[in-house]
């Protein structure tokens, strides 16, 4: 009796896991299925072909989109880690006059939906002459309140004696930050960097409204432009493109699973 009860629970878990991962499996299978065989659905493909990828590379500047996504994600991640950790350090350890007021003002920005920002940001980028350039895709997003919040939280847990000792030794804030705080904060740097990289790699709305030419698209936006209309879609092609976007992040996830889990729970779990 007890045995069968446990079996049911395991069956529920497994069924849900299969359902959650099935789209990923189906994406990869479709990407390697010849176009002519898409109509007859084969759960386990009998042959593997690269036709869809060949068509994709011939039809769209996929390599350029990959490069754009990589460049934008890397620079935003770098900028965010630097600016968020500097700000986090100031809020956690230096606490200059009025820092709480600034902190709450900045935090309030988190509550406001992106949709309010898209139109003014679009106008601003146009006026700056940045429309359809890398600057538009990168500069406005080089800092994040959430990243700063995580950094601040982590840095607050560093022992205060460290700082007092360094001060007595005549160490200024900049040296202290680069030589002592940064090395101690490696784990939280990794979490913020991974989240930023994946988040930017996947982002859609902003690159969609801030670029217009084929050459300036990032991978997700570029893929969406391959759909000519809502009813007529070449799924072999789309799944090949989706796989190119998805497989790097999936590998990334398996390499850094620990950091992903940490990032999800940071700030959401009372310690």
């Amino acid at each position: 009796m007890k045995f069968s009860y446990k079996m049911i629970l395991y069956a529920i878990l497994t069924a849900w896991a299969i359902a959650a991962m099935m789209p990923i499996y189906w994406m990869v299978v479709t990407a390697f299925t010849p176009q002519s065989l898409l109509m007859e659905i084969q759960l386990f493909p009998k042959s593997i072909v690269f036709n869809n990828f060949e068509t994709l590379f011939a039809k769209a500047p996929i390599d350029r989109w990959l490069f754009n996504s990589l460049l934008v994600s890397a620079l935003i991640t770098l900028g965010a880690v630097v600016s968020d950790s500097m700000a986090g350090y100031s809020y956690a350890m230096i606490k200059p006059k009025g820092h709480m007021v600034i902190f709450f003002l900045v935090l309030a920005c988190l509550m406001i939906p992106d949709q309010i920002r898209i139109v003014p940001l679009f106008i601003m980028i146009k006026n700056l002459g940045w429309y359809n350039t890398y600057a538009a895709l990168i500069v406005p997003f080089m800092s994040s309140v959430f990243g700063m919040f995580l950094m601040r939280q982590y840095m607050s847990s560093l022992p205060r004696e460290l700082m007092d000792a360094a001060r007595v030794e005549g160490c200024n804030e900049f040296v202290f930050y680069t030589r002592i705080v940064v090395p101690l904060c490696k784990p939280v740097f990794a979490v913020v960097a991974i989240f930023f990289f994946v988040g930017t790699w996947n982002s859609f709305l902003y690159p969609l409204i801030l670029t217009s030419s084929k050459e300036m698209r990032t991978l997700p936006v570029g893929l969406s432009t391959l759909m000519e209309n809502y009813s007529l879609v070449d799924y072999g092609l789309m799944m090949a493109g989706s796989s190119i976007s998805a497989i790097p992040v999936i590998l990334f996830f398996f390499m850094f699973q620990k950091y992903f889990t940490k990032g999800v729970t940071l700030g959401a779990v009372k310690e």
Partner: protein
Amino acid sequence: MNHTSNLQTRIKRHYRNRKMQSHLWGYFFLLPQMIVILLFALYPILQGLSLSFFEYSVAGSTWVGAQNFIAMLKDDVFWIALRNTTIYTILIVPGGLVVALILSWIIFPLSPKTQSFFKAAYYLPSVLAGVVLALVWKWILDPDIGLLNYLLSFIHLGPYPWLSHPDTALVSLAMMSILGGQGASIIIILANMGAIPESLYESARIDGGNPWHLFRFITIPMLKPTILYLLVIGVISSYQVFDTIYIMTGGGPYYSTTTIAYLIYSSAFDEFEFGRASATATVLFIIIFILSMIQFYFFREDKK
């Protein structure tokens, strides 16, 4: 006498200088983030709120008072979008939370290795781009040659029109979101379940509590802050759903999947009604704000 007080003022001045210097360093460290946030977040947000009251044109904007809001309220599509967004949120947020709680409760007693396997399996879809998931699901839900109708045909169900019919489109989107979107919630719930003291369960077991009692009267109340957090985050993000709509349905068929965020996008970038789009965004902000406040009110710790 004179000498010591002199020394004292010198020491005082020295410390004051040190303190001044420290403040300046503090501001220096805040500077990079402040520049980005002020220029590209705070300023556009304030401008967005004010744009709600203007008719925008490149030559210059003209003040139109509440006209954007009036036009919006008179527009049927706004009310349809509001209804769609609300239905979608009601389907996926409480529905998703119940699923996440049940799955977490089953996973929790398992060995750490099995736990991390299931956590990875449930979280994996969330690392993919919204666009990618939307494209894959659009393919799976294809009414003629999609995988789901094919699988359902084995148990003599369907074929269903899924996204291509106004009655089923929104529900299909909700189903997709619930199925793949529980990973983060499960990880958060499991972490918080681990913090519930074992002694609570032991004493309840001694009093003759069955597993359901333990879940209902210990796990759920102890997880209240977590549940609140997940509800607030869930509602905020579900009211802003955009990528999937843009890719999968374009708001159709017959506006059946037009959400507020999609409406804002299309009034801004299909119709170039910037004032109108900003007015709708302002309303979205107010709705999200009120909903978060209501949730906080109902889940207050000291509620009597």
